């Protein structure tokens, strides 16, 4: 039995055992062991996910919801089983509240294009925050332009925490939507979604949560959060690219107009009129990413095979270790020092541009992201043109953080 197919929970977290489940991690880059610290961009995939997708194509490939033949039945079952896995992962009340999309970006665009277009009018307001990813800014900006509505931005502190104290007074009778990320991709800040939802709901305003960076690192319970919409991507959760999820409360989804139209999202079509299908199919026009959904389901199963409490404790320990290690490097300043943080170490180095850091680190086998991380307004707020970002996942080790620090010494060496 290989660890990848193990169904027994690993009680004490054994990172070296987990690493063996991720085939990509064993390679060398420029002759050095790969140190993959770009997990906020995308996570690596365990063998179990790769195998599940291969099986989907090799054994069960057929179109879903259409054929009467056995293969189609198997493909449909696998796809719908994946939906149920996501439902339980997010603790949604019903599986029809889980809409498969391409990723977080499409999920947010879906809400903006349907709920947004139906509910936001002239002089209405949409509230976002200063630490949003472009994918949770631009769809709302376009909506506001189209509707002559106003986009309001909740500010953050120098540490990178939301000014929750200002939230209530920034909401008005004209605010129709609040959109906020659960975890900041650039800073690692964990936002108090439950509090935000409570404040918004007091005024009857629904909340759209961008959960892209949260799902791999903190437990998410959409019912406990009382989030109205929750968006996530499979590829940031050890699953494949091109598959993501929009969770929406059934009552909201049911009342929304469709997003894209075509096959599978209809129940009857004549040239005079079309009746739309029920949830979730209403929002899944066309043949979906079947193998992708199966892969995402396998990723959720894989995480379920680990002791989540031990994983979270390990990740917290790793972040604390990384924070201490980076703080000890002369000339380095960590950007984003919120009290509640996960997985992200964004930093700048005196007199060295993040790009140069990125290139030199790559030569040492250390993969990080450099740039504005699709959060240009946030970079401006923090007073930096860009940052270097090391982002962690459950398979990273303290040794890898040490390798990062050694590579940063090399940067200093070249630039001093």
């Amino acid at each position, binding site marked *: 039995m290989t660890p990848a197919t193990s169904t027994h929970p690993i009680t004490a977290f054994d990172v070296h055992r987990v690493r063996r489940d991720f085939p990509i991690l064993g390679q*060398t880059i420029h002759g050095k062991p790969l140190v993959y610290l770009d997990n906020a961009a995308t996570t690596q995939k365990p063998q179990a996910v790769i195998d599940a997708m291969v099986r989907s194509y090799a054994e069960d490939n057929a179109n879903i919801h259409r054929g009467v033949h056995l293969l189609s039945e198997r493909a449909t079952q696998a796809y719908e089983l994946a939906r149920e896995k996501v439902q339980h992962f997010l603790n949604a009340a019903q599986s029809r509240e889980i809409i498969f999309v391409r990723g977080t970006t499409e999920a947010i665009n879906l809400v903006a294009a349907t709920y947004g277009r139906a509910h936001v009018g002239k002089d209405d307001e949409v509230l976002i925050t200063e630490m949003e990813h472009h994918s949770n800014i631009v769809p709302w900006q376009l909506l506001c332009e189209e509707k002559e509505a106003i986009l309001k931005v909740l500010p953050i502190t120098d540490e990178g925490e939301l000014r929750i104290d200002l939230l209530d007074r920034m909401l008005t009778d004209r605010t129709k939507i609040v959109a906020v990320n659960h975890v900041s991709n650039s800073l690692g800040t964990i936002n108090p979604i439950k509090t935000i939802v409570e404040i918004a709901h007091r005024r009857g305003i629904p909340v759209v949560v961008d959960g892209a960076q949260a799902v791999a690192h903190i437990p998410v319970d959409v019912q406990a959060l009382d989030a109205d919409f929750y968006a996530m991507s499979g590829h940031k959760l050890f699953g494949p690219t091109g598959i993501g999820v929009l969770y929406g409360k059934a009552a909201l989804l049911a009342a929304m107009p469709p997003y894209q139209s075509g096959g599978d999202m209809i129940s009857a079509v004549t040239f005079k009129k079309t009746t739309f299908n029920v949830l979730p199919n209403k929002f899944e026009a066309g043949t979906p990413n079947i193998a992708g959904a199966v892969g995402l389901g396998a990723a959720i199963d894989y995480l379920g095979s680990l002791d989540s409490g031990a994983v979270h404790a390990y990740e917290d320990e790793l972040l604390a270790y990384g924070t201490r290690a980076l703080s000890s490097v002369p000339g380095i300043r960590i950007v984003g020092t919120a009290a509640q943080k996960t997985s992200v170490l964004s930093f700048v180095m005196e007199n*060295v541009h993040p790009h140069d850091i990125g290139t030199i680190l790559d030569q040492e086998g250390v993969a990080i992201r450099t740039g504005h991380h699709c959060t240009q307004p946030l970079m401006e707020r923090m007073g930096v043109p860009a940052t270097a970002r090391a982002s962690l996942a459950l398979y990273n080790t303290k040794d890898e953080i040490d390798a990062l620090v050694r590579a940063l010494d090399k940067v200093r060496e070249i630039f001093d």
Partner: protein
Amino acid sequence: MERGEGPPRLKMDLRELYQEVILDHNKRPRNFRVPDPNNRHAEGYNPLCGDKITIFLYVEGNVIKDLGFQGTGCAISKASASLMTDALKGKTIEQANALFDQFHHLVTGPATQAESDELGKLAVLGGVREYPMRVKCASLAWHTLKAAMQAEHDVVSTE
């Protein structure tokens, strides 16, 4: 055998990318100023990394009498802008266009010895050829220069 290395590429020491000349121009960029007077300018932007540069020219007749730049960027893009502005002062628009082509060749394909000789100091940027993700950093200033040379507004700005 190593996995995932892709096609084999000439392993280059980082010192060949970050040569002393580049590090020096990064630390003390030349012509990092808005020339007064100036009559053409253009902004260049690399959306991938957020690097921004503005090139200012003072063109009289067909000659670049003065030029300078402003902006933020990595060592490669700053050094490239600095070296470029140094090299172009007093050159004609035609000469600048010819250098643009030679520089483009230098950073994207193997340049001949004759081309390298003609580029002079600029040839130190040839190292980026081995780092495809960094070619844009080196060429941002040059593309912005081209836009500035083609800029129509000949009104002298004294800001």
